[in-house]
């Protein structure tokens, strides 16, 4: 995908911006990397900001309140006001903190999230990269989040932070296994780790999506992935790393100002990321639920709009899953640590393994 964009850019320059044609292609690569990085960063920030606004608004509705509705139309600019407030806050570093770890932790955490954003196919041609090992890459790079959290917990020099960090790492590492197995299930069905190819295989209406492809096994895999991803992003009912009533705010207890904002945005961007992955591997990504694209009937002239339509479908699916996360958060109480581990090792793990084996057998038999 990167190559395509570079070629497009070069063609454009050769045709229209002749005075720039002396620029070698390496420079274009560097420029494109910066532009793509800025796009990813901006997009992630936007999702995180709007996510925090949406969360507060949705919570309000669930609690018979209205939520923020003052800044901008329906309060949609609330996240900007919050951001400005956080930028102006004093940047505190505790005396007992390990200064290097304390400073580096939020960035490392954010890198994990942004790295995943770079691999997401938002639509047929909207996306930064088109990796052959997309799913593996996502599984690997999201491990950065764990390191960031552990560094924050250790570096804060605070018992609550340390407890929160340890809990979070134990939780994320445990729940990464069911997630990996669910990925494996999808990889077995699709025969590829390339997310664009996985999405292409799900073309042609709602019943071609992987959730409904091998009933009920893929549905079970989807549920397991969804539950495990809730734990992966430390959301209620699995929010023991930041359980307010037990350990203040967990690993980001000591953080304030912009560093805290990084954690906060990382959390919301992560929410979107896991929802987006779920919608890619199980709900057909940017494929329309109808057997044909709505705008395809108009013919080739509307190709560009069809890409946009795919983008909208993708966003709709991902945001719906994010909404269900919020819905769950304000419905369920928090699990104890032992219950959390029990769910992972005694329920999700064995079921997902058996599920995977059954799907594997089915796929083999059908082929």
């Amino acid at each position, binding site marked *: 995908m990167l190559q395509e964009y570079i070629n497009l850019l070069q063609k454009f320059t050769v045709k229209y911006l002749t005075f720039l044609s002396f620029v070698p292609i390496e420079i274009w690569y560097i420029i494109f990397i910066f532009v793509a990085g800025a796009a990813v960063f901006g997009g992630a920030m936007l999702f995180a900001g709007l996510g925090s606004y949406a969360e507060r608004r*949705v919570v*309000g*509705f*669930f*609690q*018979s*309140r*209205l939520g923020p509705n003052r800044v901008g139309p329906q309060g949609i600019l609330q996240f900007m006001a919050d951001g400005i407030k956080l930028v102006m806050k004093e940047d505190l570093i505790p005396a007992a903190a390990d200064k290097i770890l304390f400073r580096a932790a939020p960035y490392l955490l954010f890198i994990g999230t942004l790295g995943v954003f770079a691999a997401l196919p938002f639509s047929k041609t909207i996306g930064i990269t088109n990796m052959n090992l997309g799913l593996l890459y996502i599984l690997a790079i999201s491990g950065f989040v764990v390191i960031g959290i552990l560094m924050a917990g250790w570096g804060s020099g605070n018992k609550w932070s340390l407890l929160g960090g340890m809990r979070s790492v134990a939780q994320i590492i445990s729940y990464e296994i069911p997630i990996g197995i669910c990925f494996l299930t999808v990889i077995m069905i699709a025969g590829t780790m390339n997310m664009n190819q996985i999405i292409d295989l799900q073309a042609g209406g709602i019943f071609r999506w992987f959730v409904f492809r091998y009933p009920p096994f893929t549905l079970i895999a989807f549920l397991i992935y969804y539950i495990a991803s809730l734990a992966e992003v430390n959301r209620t009912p699995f929010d023991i790393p930041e359980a307010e009533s037990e350990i203040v705010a967990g690993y980001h207890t000591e953080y304030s100002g912009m560093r805290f904002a990084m954690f906060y945005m990382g959390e919301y961007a992560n929410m979107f990321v896991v929802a987006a992955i779920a919608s890619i591997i199980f709900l057909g990504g940017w494929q329309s639920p109808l057997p044909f694209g709505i705008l395809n009937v108009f013919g080739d002239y509307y190709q560009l709009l069809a890409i946009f339509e795919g983008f909208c479908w993708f966003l709709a699916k991902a945001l719906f899953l994010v909404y269900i996360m919020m*819905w*769950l958060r*304000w*419905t*369920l109480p928090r699990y104890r640590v032992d219950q959390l581990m029990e769910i992972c090792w005694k*329920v999700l793990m064995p*079921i997902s393994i058996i599920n995977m084996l059954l799907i594997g057998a089915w796929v083999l038999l059908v082929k």
Partner: protein
Amino acid sequence: MIDYFKAIVLGLWSVVVGMSVTMKYFFAKKVTLQYPDQRWEMPERFRGMVKCDPDKCISCLYCVNICPVSCITLESVKVDVPAKVINLEGKEMKRLKDVTNFEIDVAKCIFCGLCTEGCTTGAIFMSHDYEISCYHRKDMVYQWARKKE
């Protein structure tokens, strides 16, 4: 083994039940009152800020004397032609004085309502105003007069 699956199904079912409960609240009527735009309607006997109608005041000094915190100051002058005032019982009364300065120091007022209970003409009454905060102490002193001097 059966218990194991039973627990899983039961757990998922209880989540669904809980989510249906929260969903009801999602679409329920919101209880928030958008305060500066919308307000509660005050009950009839709500004791807000004390106000005065100097046209009705006959300068009997009842309120000044009964006020437990002495927050009311009343100054008046005699008039040549007495005006007629209708009191709360519907009878006509003569008003021999004109109020030149009727002061209520709301900072001192305890909103007990004693001044309004004995006022024969209803000149002093408790309004429904409750947004009476201000930046300076002198703004808390409210003044009324029939004749500006």
